[in-house]
């Protein structure tokens, strides 16, 4: 349950993961997407914008196609809440090299920090265990996370890591009044962001 008052900064969590970035395919979404890409983007990064909840099974598909390539999913609590069934789908498929990191800040950051439902009374780690993940652990301080991370990366998956994080306050303000520009994603229209990057990832994995 998320009753702890201790929280991890998203930047610190990203830094810990970025230092261990190698040849993994990384699927990121929502508020973690931009800082992750600024810190650790390679030609194996996939982005999820405009379809909340899709990151985890998107990553599962890559892992089932390429079992030898590790896949990390950098998910959000609000996103995972929209597709809780994905825990069952992943638990059932049992991808071995699959790390599912859930940034649990307790709010819908981009829409103005409204609370995620049942905040304080639920645990994604417990749900993942019940859905068939091999291991699922929750951390609310960066030191414990860092100490455990290398072992978790060596554990046969699927593994879920629930990080109790600070809200980023990174809410989406919408287009400038009088304009019809879509939500920008690294300066590109959001609609084309995924279409731009996935062929690059496919090519880095050996083509289709």
């Amino acid at each position: 349950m998320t009753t702890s008052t201790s929280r991890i900064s998203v930047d610190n969590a990203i830094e810990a993961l970025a230092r261990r970035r190698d040849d993994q395919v990384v699927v990121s979404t929502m508020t973690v997407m931009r800082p992750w890409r600024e810190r650790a983007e390679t030609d194996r990064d996939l982005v999820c914008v405009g379809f909340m909840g899709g990151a985890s099974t998107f990553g599962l598909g890559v892992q089932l196609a390429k079992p030898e390539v590790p896949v990390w999913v950098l998910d959000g609590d609000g996103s995972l809440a929209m597709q809780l069934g994905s825990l069952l789908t992943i638990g059932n498929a049992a991808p071995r090299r699959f790390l599912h990191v859930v940034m649990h800040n307790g709010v819908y950051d981009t829409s103005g920090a409204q609370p995620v439902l049942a905040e304080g009374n639920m645990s994604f780690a417990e749900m993942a265990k019940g859905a068939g993940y091999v291991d699922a652990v929750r951390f609310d301080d960066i030191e414990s996370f860092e100490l455990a991370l290398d072992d978790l990366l060596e554990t046969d998956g699927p593994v879920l890591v629930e990080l109790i994080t600070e809200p980023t306050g990174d809410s989406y303000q919408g287009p400038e009044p009088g304009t019809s520009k879509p939500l920008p994603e690294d300066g590109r229209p959001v609609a084309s962001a995924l279409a731009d990057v996935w062929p690059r990832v496919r090519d880095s994995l050996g083509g289709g």
Partner: protein
Amino acid sequence: MTMAESIPAIDLLQAMRDVGVTDVVAVPDTHQRSLITLLDQDDGIRFIQAATEDEAVALAAGLIVGGRKPIVQIQHAGLYACVNHLRGIAGDGRFPMVFMIGLLGRDPYRAPSEHAGSMVALAEPLLDTLKVPRFLLDGPSDVGMVAEAFAQAEAREGPTALLIGVNTA
């Protein structure tokens, strides 16, 4: 009036083999259950079950990134359930993704859009709204549409849909 002919599941399976399908990502569909049974026993094409149709779309996209050639097998109710993932991943993401959608409860003597029930009647208009090319399989002679759907998905870099208008047997 003659009886509507079922589509032999083995013919659909062979059409998928011929076009090189590697995986069927599915939320079970009553209309296509004989095909699901065959797929479950098939060593060549992998059957992957998802809890929701949204997940099936995202999972299939990941398979495509990894170089596989999946088909998404769902029911008409599942089409309505996964509209945003169909739009946002398959459509905007420009994935050559083929959907096989069972029209459970369809009266085979009427065009789907003239069906009394909204579950069947709205499938084609919805696909048209989403700009997803569609192919209606009305009997055994339509199985060749499987190859057409894949060819068109790859040519347009986007989704296409096979509507299974009668039972598979």
